[in-house]
């Protein structure tokens, strides 16, 4: 079970409170977790990654176990504590706009 923390506006969009819990088939990579997230909450498609290029939106970043995973490739395996559910994958919206 993978835990994901969404920024507040995406929680509103997905109609969820608190963390999201996902079951991921196969290796738990950054890409497979985001795939599972979008599969369960299709309204999040296009909001975290571009629909077409699948690139991360520039004002969002990925963190886990106090490490910034934003620039890692999609096939990077997530840290063990994230895979075990001890730590969440955090999708963080930047403080931007002045």
């Amino acid at each position, binding site marked *: 079970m993978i835990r994901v923390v969404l*920024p507040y506006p*995406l929680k509103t969009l997905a109609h969820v409170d608190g963390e999201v819990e996902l079951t991921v088939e196969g290796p738990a990579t950054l890409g497979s977790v985001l795939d599972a997230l979008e599969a*369960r909450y299709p*309204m999040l498609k*296009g909001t975290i990654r571009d629909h077409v290029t699948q690139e991360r*939106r520039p004002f969002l970043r990925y963190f886990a176990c106090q490490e910034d995973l934003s620039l890692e490739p999609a096939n990077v395996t997530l840290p063990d504590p994230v895979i075990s559910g001890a730590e969440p994958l955090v999708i963080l919206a930047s403080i*931007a706009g002045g």
Partner: protein
Amino acid sequence: MKGSPADPNRLYASQTSGWFGQIIQRSSDGGKTWEQPGTKPGEPTKTPDGMPMGESNKFVYDTSPGSGKPLTTHQWYDGTQHPWEFKRVWHLEPSLTDPNTVYAGIEDAAIFRTTDGGKTWQELAGLRGHGTGPKWAPGAGGMCLHTILLDPKNSKRIFVAISSAGAFRSDDGGTSWKPINRGLKSEYIPDPNAEIGHCVHRIAMHRSRPNTLFMQKHWDVLRTDDAGDNWREVSGNLPTDFGFVIDVHAHEPETVYVVPIKSDSEHFPLEGKLRVYRSRSGGNEWEPLTNGLPQRDCYVNVLRDSMSVDSLDPCGVYFGTTGGQVYASADSGDKWFPIVRDLPPVFSVEVQTLA
């Protein structure tokens, strides 16, 4: 935001941000609740017939061979060619007859259509592909398709306007398009009378006379009486003919409203006095409407989608400002009062007459 003329409970809204990109929201209960079309949590990501879900915010330019001449570039600020990149939805225009059909004007300029209530969107690529597309260039606000008018007497006819390419018309339901900018004169472009390149800000139509259109251009207010084939300036005695918004009275097709703005570099009313100007003669002769509007130290702007009229008699007129006020007049503009203030900048004002 825009409501469906065919179903007052059906509303469509476009949200966009640098964080989460484009979001399309839809209400089917007059605005009490909103949803992204076709994307309920926990549902399968494909419909039973295999259509992907979660695509209400997916706007992908049509590059298929069947769409005619799919383009890959337009003109950039420095004159070089630049790829088309989807940025945001500027305007949503629901069909006059079908609540599930909506047209979307987007940046970089193109027109899209949904026929399933916003779940999926397809480009009407003939607009970008008709031939002048590579010459289109963005204005200061981006290269946006901001105006879509549907002809109530001819279901095949659609008008659109693009900053800063100009106005275009389709007579076959959006398949093919042509520029309709003859008579527009823009001194700030290399050829002031060019076929395209004009920074049209907004076009308005009265339902009873769809061949007559009123235009607020970057500078100049104009009208056409032949569906855009020929335009003529009707700025007349306006104190400045720069502005964004323009609209037509609900029952008097020759009564037109604009809000003059000082200049393209100073986006506020002349002398700090917020004045709506009304012409009862289809242009040229304009009168200032000031009763109830701030007449000193007012430095707001009124953006292009921020005026609307109701269908009551006398006609109600409404407009919002970048200062967060929405002003209303229940008597065609003679007297105004704020119905809400202290909002964030108002981008869109939509009025529905329910009874």
